[in-house]
């Protein structure tokens, strides 16, 4: 809520304007019964038809004013809600874009998506409704009470006595309701996750004929959502009938006490009639207030989830560290790291790369190859040791400088639903020459030229309309396009066939020889020409050196090499 109020602050002037206009409208609604009572009690006995029409005309004027003011103020409210939501979504999206990888792991992607979509939507609804009803209802409530006070303070006192009970009721109900809505949001998170899994895994599910099982799984999730929502709804549904009962009891008391007061000559029956009109207004606005509570319960649960993300501390802060003079481009100096801060994922990694050199990394699954990249790019912070680029520790390089050094293709990297060109350019304002050279080097020209609209061809979300190999070529072109200082290819040639892979390596050598390259690969042929090859096993270095050196010194390397180069291993 704190964030929300802060976001709304710039709109306070306009909101106040809206509130003032709404206030006028609400006043009109209050005047109407007052005029009515005046008409019946004071004007009618005069038996002057003209006056009756005059006051009646005044009522119509009030009604007109109410119409205009309400429409204007509702539009202002809609405007404020629109702008606030836009801002909240913008802030949230911006924050998510800047979350560290570690924080992304913790929030998880689906949950962040939900916060950005359904939670902001709930907030939008809340702000919009709150302004419309949240102002009108209390004004009518207070105004109604004030009007009744002026009519007959004693009768009003009866009403006022009831209000604390209603307040208590609303408090108790929403105290129980808010946690239920939070729980509901969690359950819908889970349900959405099941749906998403079914979309991404459709082939596997169909292949294994697990459709029925998945239906079952979804029904369970669906069940949870429904039963929680029911519980929350049941809780909230208590408010209205109980409140109605309380208010109507009050009304009966008013008539009862009113009877005595009329009897003692303290009030007139016309006032009781007007009183009852106000009473309807008061009751309706009380109902509106409770409806707002329901909505606010839901909205504030969502606002809380949004705030959780916005409040995430800034991670990976740039620390001032002195530069060391060294000729190597990239240096890993006794680096240790663990994702979970328990078992080490990397232990004592050291290597040095000169500018323009190529490092190949080879190792078993889970041996920590990608982790080296994650640390070099400072997607995570190492636990001990030091990583330097141009002698500068990575922690001391500001993000805008650090990240423009790299061209990178991650495992399972993603394409956006934009044109081919935009997927290569990736928002970086590159020239046509840069893009075409990159595409050519990445061996993508042939397939791009085969497309009807060439570089303007639209790629579907997640690159669904092109093959795995084509995807990878585009990704490599993207990495090369701005001629980065450091090129990182994390297993990015696996979907390329040998010939394409070989051509790629040749092109890199020709056009991008000054780039320091780190290649993670499964195929020996992709890395055997590297200046250095790092063999990783369970987060530790088994060896580093050239192909020839490792063939001599590293048994694991020799085994892999033999198996791949058509040696004694007969493949299945």
């Amino acid at each position, binding site marked *: 809520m704190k964030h929300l109020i802060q976001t709304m602050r710039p709109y306070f002037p306009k909101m106040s304007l809206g509130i003032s206009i709404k206030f006028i409208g609400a006043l009109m609604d209050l005047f109407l019964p007052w005029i*009515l009572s005046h*008409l*019946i009690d004071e004007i*009618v006995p005069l038996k002057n*038809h003209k006056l009756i029409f005059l006051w*009646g005309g005044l009522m119509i004027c*009030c009604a*007109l004013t109410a*119409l205009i003011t309400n429409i204007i103020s509702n539009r202002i409210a*809609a405007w404020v809600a*629109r702008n606030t939501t836009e801002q909240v979504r913008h802030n949230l999206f911006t924050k998510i874009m*800047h979350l560290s990888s570690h924080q992304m792991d913790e929030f*998880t*992607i689906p949950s962040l*998506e939900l916060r950005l*979509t359904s939670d902001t939507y709930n907030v*939008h609804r809340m702000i919009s409704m709150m302004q419309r009803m949240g102002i009108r209802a209390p004004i009518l409530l207070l105004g109604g009470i004030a009007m009744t006070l002026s009519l007959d303070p004693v009768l009003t006192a009866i009403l006022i006595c009831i209000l604390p009970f209603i307040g208590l009721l609303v408090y108790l109900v929403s105290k129980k309701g808010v946690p239920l809505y939070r729980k509901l949001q969690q359950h819908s998170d889970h349900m959405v996750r099941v*749906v998403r*899994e079914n*979309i*991404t895994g*459709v*082939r596997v*599910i169909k*292949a*294994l004929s697990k459709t029925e099982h998945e*239906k079952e799984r979804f029904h369970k999730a*669906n*069940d949870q959502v429904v039963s929680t929502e*029911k519980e929350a*709804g049941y809780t909230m549904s208590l408010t209205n*009938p*109980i409140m109605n*009962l309380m208010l109507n009891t009050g009304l009966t008391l008013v*008539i009862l006490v009113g*009877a005595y007061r*009329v009897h003692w000559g303290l009030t007139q029956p016309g006032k009781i009639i007007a009183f*009852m009109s106000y009473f*309807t207004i008061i009751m309706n606005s009380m109902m509106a207030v409770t409806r707002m509570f329901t909505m606010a319960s839901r909205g504030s649960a969502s606002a809380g989830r949004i705030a959780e993300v916005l409040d995430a501390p800034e991670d990976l802060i740039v620390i001032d560290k002195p530069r060391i003079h060294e000729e190597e481009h990239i240096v890993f100096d006794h680096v240790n790291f663990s*994702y979970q801060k328990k078992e080490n994922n990397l232990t004592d990694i050291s290597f040095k790369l000169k500018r323009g050199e190529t490092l190949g990394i*080879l*190792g*078993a*699954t*889970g041996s920590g190859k990608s982790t080296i990249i994650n640390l070099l790019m400072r997607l995570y912070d190492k636990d001990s040791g030091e990583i330097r680029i141009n002698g500068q520790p990575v922690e001391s390089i500001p993000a*805008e400088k650090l*990240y423009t050094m790299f061209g*990178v293709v991650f495992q399972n990297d*993603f394409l956006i*639903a934009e044109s081919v060109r935009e997927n290569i350019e990736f928002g970086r304002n590159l020239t046509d020459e840069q893009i075409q050279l990159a595409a050519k080097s990445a061996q993508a020209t042939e397939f791009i030229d085969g497309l009807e609209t060439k570089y303007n061809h639209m790629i579907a*979300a997640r690159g669904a309309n092109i093959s*795995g190999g084509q995807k990878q070529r585009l990704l490599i072109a993207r990495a090369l396009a701005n001629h980065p200082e450091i090129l990182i290819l994390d297993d990015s040639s*696996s979907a390329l*066939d*040998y010939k394409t892979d*070989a051509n790629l390596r040749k092109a890199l050598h020709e056009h991008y020889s000054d780039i320091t390259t780190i290649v993670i690969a*499964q195929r020996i042929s992709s890395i055997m020409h590297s200046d250095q090859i790092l063999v990783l096993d369970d987060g530790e270095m088994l060896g580093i050196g050239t192909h020839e050196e490792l063939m001599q010194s590293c048994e694991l390397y020799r085994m892999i090499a033999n198996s*791949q180069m058509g040696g004694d291993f007969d*493949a*299945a």
Partner: protein
Amino acid sequence: MPPKGKMEKPKDTKRTLLRLAKYLGHQKYFLLLALILTISSNSLALFGPKISGNAIDAIGTGSAPVDFESVFYYCRMMILFYAGSSMLSLILSRLMIHISQKISYQMRKDLFDKLVELPVGYFDTHPAGDVISRMSYDIDTVNTSLSHDLLQIATSVITVTGSLSMMISLSPKLVLVFAFTVPLSIFVARTMAKRVHPLFGKRSRKLGELNGYVEEIISGQKTIKAYHQEETMIERFDRRNIEAVDAYYDADYYGTMTGPSVMFVNNLSLSLVSMFGSMLFLGNQISLGSLSSFVLYSRKFSGPINEFANIMSDLQSALAAAERVFRLMDQEPELHDKENALHLTEAEGFVDMEHVKFGYLPGKTIIHDLNLHADKGSLVAIVGPTGAGKTTLINLLMRFYDPESGAVKLDDYDLRDLTRKSVRSQYAMVLQDTWLFEGTIFENIAYGKPDATLDEVIAAAKAARIHSTIMRFPNGYDTHLNENGLNISQGQKQMLTIARAMLLDAKMLILDEATSNVDTRTEIEIQKAMRNLMKDKTCFVIAHRLSTIQNADTILVVQAGEIVEQGNHTELLKKNGLYATLYKSQFQ
């Protein structure tokens, strides 16, 4: 709006309403009960003003003494009536929640059941975010509207008819005022609804688009960070965000006019009632108490009409949402199995493709004329440059798609004459895209064989060389994988899916780039296990690594959707064609 759209809109709305009504129909007994409760609770509430009017008449106009006995009597009655009415309305609102939850459960279930029946191609072309948006946001909207509005409509109808008859009984002349104002309200509400309906449709659509974008971009956050393109993406997000909030605003802009407009009509009638009521009072045609009751009833009467306008705008957005839900439900599912489709229990395992022609989109043929014979227990390797159509072959083999012409056959049965389930269950499959779901490692491996014992699962995991890794996780096989699998690498994921395939006792095997994420040392080990697994099985392997395929019985070299070469390793090398070129390039 073009005239054509104008013609179609109401028809769509009618169909949507009809389908919603069908959902309501399932709950007809509950609904009937709700209706009865609504009638009784509102009738009770309706008598309130009448009684209070009587009470006021008993108090008198000031000149006569107060008739306390009657006042007490009427007050007791009021309390009784109001208590009863509150009680009933509590039961009623719970009943309505129950009904609406039943309905949204059913809608989600139907939508999901439909979702899993859709052909795989649907998901290649539709963003998951949009589908999810229909499942959550759109159904929620329908649900909110049903639970709140249905009740309101029922209440409104009863209150309106009830208070109208009360007013008629009090003063038929005064009721004439409403002959003017009611049509006015209805006119206002209808005009607004017509205007607002398309805006609500747009609002849902834009939100769906925004969700699709969010889904896409957030999953690529790491890459965006690596290229320092956060600002670019934020800018693009802002564009869609603005579209979404604008669509919301547009709907609000007109939608929020309805309430005040209808309220104006109400106030107008109040003014008219008081004017003419006063006249009637002067002409001694109505008592003060009756006038007071009449005013209360007129408020009750117009209250629901006012509420009705809000409901209309709610319903508009619910209808738009329901349309989106139904449109997804109307997607063509995978064709049903033929009526007399054969259920193949255990295939021998020979596969034929005869003159297969196929394209994903009509007019875009990517396989022109494919012939292939794979013997029982043979190994077929499919190689070729990227994008040559290798995955398409698998889609045909497993009947994710049917060919345009020609036939795919298993044991000489045309696949179209077999049940899909029996075709697919003949295969164990490991795909390039690893897919794990939220659940334990055990559940993920045993996914294709739910009755698997722990020993079997461990054996499969050992065969896939992932057992020792699993044991290193804090909870071993009970380790819970969340969707992002934060502590598990791509290669480990792949091995889990291999273990999953190993557990199946299938006659045939499909490996689509199955080991592309597994490093070579592991691959060597896996393939040792694979070779045991593949014994006596017909295997289709797509791989780029020539070492994995050179021992295949048949190698299919695919280029541009055509099989350009077919033969074993030695034969193909001798041919000195595309295969030979591909093979040699690995040593360059």
